């Protein structure tokens, strides 16, 4: 199997420790990504994306070399949708270099419709992460 994620960097935003571990593990097992950051809450994730210094630590980003954001929907304090609203206010240089996937166990159609209507969301994926499905968006 080719390892297309080698060149990609991942940002996991999920409040569940177990799910974060599972997703990272699945990603690792499928071919180790270069950079993988796991953040438990949406707010620090926004801080990270909003800070040039922090972003720089992630490494050089471009549209061809994007940061893949795997975002949970149901999280305490700030949920996935609020995150996306704030995300919208980030500079275009940052948002253009991000590919956001919602990774959720929600099957609430309102959630899914709302997510699909969001311009930053590439796709809503069901937990647990199916790497092959994710792959389809990078071939």
């Amino acid at each position: 199997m080719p390892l297309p994620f080698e060149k990609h960097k991942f940002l996991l935003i999920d409040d569940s420790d177990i799910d974060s571990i599972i997703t990272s593990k699945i990603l690792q097992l499928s071919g180790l990504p270069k950079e993988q950051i796991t953040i438990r809450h949406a707010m620090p994730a926004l801080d990270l994306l909003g800070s040039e210094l922090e972003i720089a630590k992630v490494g050089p980003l471009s549209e061809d070399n994007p940061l893949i954001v795997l975002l949970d929907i149901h999280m305490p304090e700030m949920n996935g949708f609020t995150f996306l609203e704030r995300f919208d206010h980030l500079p275009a240089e940052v948002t253009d270099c991000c590919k956001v996937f919602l990774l959720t166990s929600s099957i609430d159609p309102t959630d899914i419709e709302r997510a699909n209507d969001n311009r930053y969301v590439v796709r809503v994926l069901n937990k647990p992460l199916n790497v092959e499905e994710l792959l389809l968006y990078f071939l």
Partner: protein
Amino acid sequence: MPIASSKISFDGSARAAALSGNHSAAFVKTVDRFSVYTFLDTAWEAVVGYLGQEGYEGQATTLNLSPWIELSSLAPQQRLAIERLSRGLPYSIEFTIKALGQSITLQESGFMVGVDDKGQQKIQGFLQNITAQRQALEEMERQRLFYEGTLNKMPVELVVLDKTQHYIFCNKTAIKNDELRAWLIGKTDLDYCLHRGKDPKTVALRQAYFNQAVSTKQEVEWEEVQKNEFGENDYNLKRYSPILGPDGEILIVIGYGFNISDRRRAEIRAKEQDELIRSLAENVQEGIYRLSAEGKLLFANDAFYDLMPELVAEKMRKGISTDIADRVLAMLLDAEGKESGQEVSIDLQGRSRNWLISSRRTADGMFVDGVVIDITHLKEVQADLERKNAELEKAYMELDKFVYSASHDLRAPLTSILGLVKVMETEHEQKLEDFTAALPYVGMIKTSVTRLDDFVKEIIQYYRNNRTEIHHKETDLALLTQAIYDSLSHYRPEVPLKLEVVSHLETPLTVDASRLNIILNNLIINSVKYHDKPGGFVRTTLTHQKGHLCIEVEDNGPGIQAEHHTKLFDMFYRIGFDETGSGLGLYIVQETIKKLEGTLTFESSPRKGTKFTVKLPLQQV
């Protein structure tokens, strides 16, 4: 003395005698066997002379006196006379002669006194001028015709009876049929009744009235009701009017009959109408009223007054103005002609009431007719219903929220378990860890968890189909199908399949995307899940035909045994080889299609494959 060829001359005195009124003259004449006069005495000469002839030549018979005598009337008389003469009987002939602008009617009566040896008959008799009598008779006939004609043309039934109630006369209005009318003369009502097969009850009644008229010598009037040929009641005003002689004796009785059916029926109709209106006004629970154009109360039913406080109603009935009455009337006038009525609220001595007033001005613009309904209670019920509805809506929203978050909370740990299992399997595959001993259990955990997770998803789909309104949205169905394929691309790596979309759709369609997702997802998952031929296919064909969307999901999988066909869409029905299914999938598909008013059919041959066909009506845009 033969006259056949001699010239007869007349003197003036004879002419005068013939012309004078009531002249009667004896005559003698002789006729041969051909009825030719052979001798005429002076009396006859007078007649012939009167005709204004200077002389009379040739063979003369009475017949030859034409054109002065109306022969047509004479000829039969003449024949009869000749016949009677031959039998030695006296005869009589009447004839009219016309001359000098006058008509004179003569009567000749005679008998044969002898026959001579030449066979000539000698006749002796009288000639009489009966012009005056004839004229008197004709005058009488004219008068008869005048009176009869007038009586017959009268629009009133008129009969004349003798004092024993026998008919003397009956006009055409009473009996149209000429024959029957003629028959009736001299008969009684009873005769008529028997003759015509009518009810003799009426006869007895008439008899009683007749007797009363005769005995009191007074006019009697009564009303007679009879069924006509259409079975309706005919109403006749009858009257017996006795005509008295100079000594007070009864000469005749005149019977009149006036047909008053139209009037009576109109009266009956009017009475029924009145009764109907009265009954409606009494029995209808709504207040009914009529106002004058100026807003004065002209009529109101009891229900109307019942709407008012008792004292106000009492005064209103008497037309006494009160503050409340004035307000009510102003309101009624104001509501006039409002389409679908006007709702008003009014404070009646501290009691707040809601009324619905519906009224209209009459066609002539003189009145306003209307209805008042007390909807106070209705309003309360309505408000109550609205409140309950809002509560229900809120409850439903909360339930929706609860169901989705509950489902999320149920699924979250399941997906975590599945994730962990997946990590274990992958680590084992990549020889990072050895889970050989645990692997069968891990597999079982995975199956159970998948099953529980599918069940949760299906319950939500079922709930969603029932609960959510149809929501149309422009959708690219080929993309939707492809996304479903994508999510299944590595669903069963052990059975690789060709997943095909054949779309004949040119543009995105406006459909209920989430329901179509449920339908497609379930049908495609079934095809993939149970496929038994690695390298086989699952093909989704999308067509748009005649306002319908047609979806076919076809596979060359194991097919479905005929025994399952009838129960395939039953809730919780599972086919034997389906170990992980909930038995809800196809049931949900069918329910969802029902909601969209579409149809679902399938064809299947064991070992060869199955094809499901969905037809959905498209929204008219």
